[in-house]
């Protein structure tokens, strides 16, 4: 039952895309409605997965394994754990919103557009549930093609430059990863006598690789993921891609594509190479802190709203990377939650910018002012998204950022408070650039006469924004269901790293990470109950 469900969640969008290819391109209404329906059905099908997974187990569940390339033992292996479950749900949740928000906004070549989105959905879900390095790589690369077309065909003025840059950056990273994957397979051949790309087998073997080689492999994987996240200084493709992509493309890009990088860091770098991870943790931490501050400072001076949100992504993902680099339960759980949060709130910010752009066809902050007077409902929703992104307590962003900072404090690998202290200023900067932008756009008198007759949100826009708001509030008030899902898989990774941290004081370490402070009680409970 669960297996069938997982397969259908993975392949329903692909089947839909193939089905829509046969429908002539001028039947646009069919393309719009069918693709939206498929995305919604996929979401509904993916919901039961939450309950079909035993959250107390840290191993993979609903595993399906079908042989594919026998000689290289590459198989069609998929399965879920708590972390991938959350990201799959984020994907299936975001997709209907992205497709729904495109209705009426995309006017050329709609058939290809919706086909690309459905193809993208299968590839993204595939990345999160692949349990075979080879399959993972195939899905990882498969994402490039639809995203490349989405930016290149339906993007803004400089779309070609942005699309090519996006493609080249990503492929450079991923080809290095390919070499590392093959190297791992060859290592397996010498260790267990069979070339394999089976994730579970390699996970057992990888830590026994000599540390010198491990460093190289860690670097190859990390580089590929760092470009995707993007971690400073590999972030330069992101503002271009975001600004040029159509609104729905930005939502998917920020909401899900970037998460593939951070997901990969946890799933492969930490799990495969715990020793190297310990060595590289300070470097990752420093880059994360630079990203947080740099992204925030650059965002502050942007005259273009979309670019501002794009740079805020660099800053926000810095928190995720900091949480990962801390390699503590709090940090990684916070990172996973922050991935979901960022997907929701930044996705919503992009939608809001899109709402304004559709009315005025400009994203210049200076062009607006006093919009709240003419669009009061929009002002409320935009404000919520903005506050969630700032990290206001009571909304989702706070929980994730708080946990990652906590992880940074506690981490025995980073072993310094300075990471978290400097990063915490990023929260203040976020408040500065987002509130300032909001104030300039929404408040004050209407100086530009073009803004006087803007109509408030349409029904379609409400339908795309309100579902996100539910989750913004839900995670902010009661993050328990989300944290519970990722708790055991996080704990498994943390324990694994801990086991390889022999030179460090192991006893002090366990005490430190289990002894949570008093002001995060609900979270602490979840962390403790899941601990074996």
């Amino acid at each position, binding site marked *: 039952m669960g297996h069938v469900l997982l397969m259908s969640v993975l392949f329903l969008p692909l089947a839909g895309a193939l089905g829509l290819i046969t429908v002539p391109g001028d039947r646009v209404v069919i393309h719009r409605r069918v693709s939206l329906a498929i995305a919604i059905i996929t979401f509904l099908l993916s919901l039961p997965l939450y309950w079909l997974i035993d959250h107390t187990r840290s191993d993979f569940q609903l595993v399906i394994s079908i042989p594919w390339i*026998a000689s290289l033992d590459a198989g069609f292996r998929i399965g879920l754990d708590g972390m991938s479950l959350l990201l799959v749900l984020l994907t299936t949740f975001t997709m209907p919103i992205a497709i729904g928000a495109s209705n009426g906004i995309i006017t050329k070549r709609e058939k290809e557009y919706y086909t690309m989105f459905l193809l993208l959905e299968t590839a993204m879900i595939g990345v999160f549930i692949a349990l075979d390095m080879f399959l993972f790589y195939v899905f990882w*690369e498969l994402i490039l093609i639809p995203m490349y077309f989405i930016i*290149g065909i339906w993007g803004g003025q400089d*779309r070609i430059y942005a699309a*090519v840059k996006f493609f080249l950056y990503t492929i450079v990273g991923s080809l*290095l990863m*390919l070499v590392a994957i*093959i190297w791992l397979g*060859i290592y397996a051949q010498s260790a267990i006598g069979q070339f394999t790309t089976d994730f579970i087998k390699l996970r057992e073997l990888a830590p026994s690789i000599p540390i010198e080689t491990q460093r190289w492999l860690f670097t190859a994987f990390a580089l590929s993921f760092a470009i995707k996240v993007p971690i400073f200084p590999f972030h330069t493709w992101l503002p271009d891609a975001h600004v040029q992509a159509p609104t729905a493309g930005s939502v998917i890009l920020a909401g899900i594509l970037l998460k593939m990088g951070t997901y990969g860091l946890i799933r492969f770098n930490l799990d495969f190479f715990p020793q190297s991870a310990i060595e590289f943790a300070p470097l990752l931490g420093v880059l994360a802190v630079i990203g947080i501050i740099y992204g925030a400072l650059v965002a502050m001076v942007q005259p273009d709203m979309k670019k501002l949100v794009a740079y805020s992504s660099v800053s926000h993902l810095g928190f995720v990377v900091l949480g990962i680099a801390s390699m503590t339960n709090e940090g990684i759980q916070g990172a996973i939650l922050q991935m979901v949060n960022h997907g929701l709130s930044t996705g919503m910010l992009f939608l809001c910018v899109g709402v304004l752009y559709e009315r005025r066809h400009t994203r210049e902050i200076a062009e607006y002012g006093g919009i709240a007077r003419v669009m009061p409902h929009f002002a409320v929703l935009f404000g919520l998204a903005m506050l969630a992104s700032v990290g206001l307590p009571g909304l989702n962003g706070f929980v994730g950022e708080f946990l990652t900072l906590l992880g940074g404090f506690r981490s025995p690998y980073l072993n310094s408070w300075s990471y978290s202290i400097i990063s915490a200023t990023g929260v203040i900067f976020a408040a500065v650039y987002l509130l300032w932008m909001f104030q300039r756009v929404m408040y004050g008198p209407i100086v530009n006469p073009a803004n006087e007759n803007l109509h408030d949100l349409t029904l379609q826009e409400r339908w795309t924004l309100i579902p996100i708001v539910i989750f913004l509030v839900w995670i902010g008030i009661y993050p328990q269901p989300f944290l519970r899902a990722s708790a055991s898989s996080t704990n498994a990774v943390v324990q694994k790293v801990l086991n390889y941290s022999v030179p460090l004081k192991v006893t002090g370490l366990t005490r430190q990470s289990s002894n949570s402070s008093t002001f995060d009680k609900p979270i602490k409970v979840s962390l403790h109950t899941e601990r074996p």
Partner: protein
Amino acid sequence: MMNEWLCASPLILISFAAVIALVVDALTPNSERTTYHFSLVSLAIALVAAIITVPANGLAFSGMIRTGGAPAVLDSVFIVGGLLTIIAARPYIAARNFEHDEFYTLVLYATSGMMLIAHAQHLLILFIGIEVMSLSFYVLAGYFRQTVSSIESALKYFLLGAFATGFLVFGIALVYSATGSLDFGGIGTAIKNHTLTFPRLFPIGIALIIVGLGFKVAVFPFHQWAPDVYDGAPTVVTGFMSTAGKAAALGAFIPVVLDMISLDEQSVQTVLALSATGTIIIGNIAAVVQRRIKRMLAYSSVAHAGYMLIGLAVANHRGLTALVFYAVAYLFMQLGAFVVLAILDRDVERSVELDDCAGLATKHQGLAAAMALFMFSLAGIPPMAGFFGKYYLFTAAIEAGYTWLAIVGVIGSMISVYYYIGVVVYMYFKDARETIWATEMSATKRLPLVVTAAAVIVLGIVPSALESLLSSFWK
């Protein structure tokens, strides 16, 4: 005795068909239609024969010819290439009012030459195969005999090719004088038993053979002829030359690596690895700056020969399997791209440039989608055939301890992505202009495209069928 003839039937069928076509051509005027259909039918029959004889692995005709196994698989590849070329060529040459039946005859001859190479178990057979193939290609390259670029292409190819053949013959002579044998098996035994008459001549002979074959494949540093020749030749001919022709010449390397060089393996491996490095880097870098798609594909075909050379350089079974797999994948994707170009080409002198492709996707969706598929596959993006070819090759390289060679291949792929997706940029992202592309599509124009595109996808989704078949030949 009968069995021998049956096992070698694909080779014999095509050779006779070529002779018959030539005679029919000489005796009957205006037999273009007849020759066209005759070539198609004979190639189709030979394809069936080749597929049937795959299990008939063995030697025939006093050990001169190898039958079944890998040669039979290569046969089917060459035949499919020939079939697609003939089908794509007819509307192409018809559009230029240059329909002569020798075109099809020459394709048949070239195919039989390639098959001889694949079947060769004897240096003389190998040499005859290479000559039959090369001579047919010299003429095919100059098929548009009233066009300067076509004549230039043929002349360059012929002069340099003849020069390279000299190296090959001299190499064969030296190997014979060193070992007293022209038979691959005999040479291998002589090396193993250290019964060389003139041991010093042997490495020189092998080196000359490698130079001669390296020229035919167009590997660094013998690649300079390739861009001009490929660019000037008729587009459909270039497609055939740069895929099946290249695969055949690489196939000629296999016995050299497999049977003949156990004497001084390490040095030959190093030479091949360095040559592969140069070929990959130079081919890819030169392709980046090209505006004319045909010339870009010509340079990139040099780079692809470099990737395939990795399979030879690592000299293990996985490498050879990967090499043949890549050759098959490459045949479909490169030939497909050339079929698209042949449809788009209007001018005999000047092939389509990137600018001419602007907005192609809005006018000819199917054509643009097919071209995009071939470009992504050539760039090595999964899940297309080209990716799996590279995956197998790099795996073989890393397995043999040549991690650096795999990294060179990866760097080459990174560069290649730039110019391959450049074509997609023009087709899909730029707005249409006044262009020269073909207006009407027909079933015969579509057929080769559909076949190659389907092959690229199928090989990408189920690569293991072909791969496991190939790897069984070298175990």
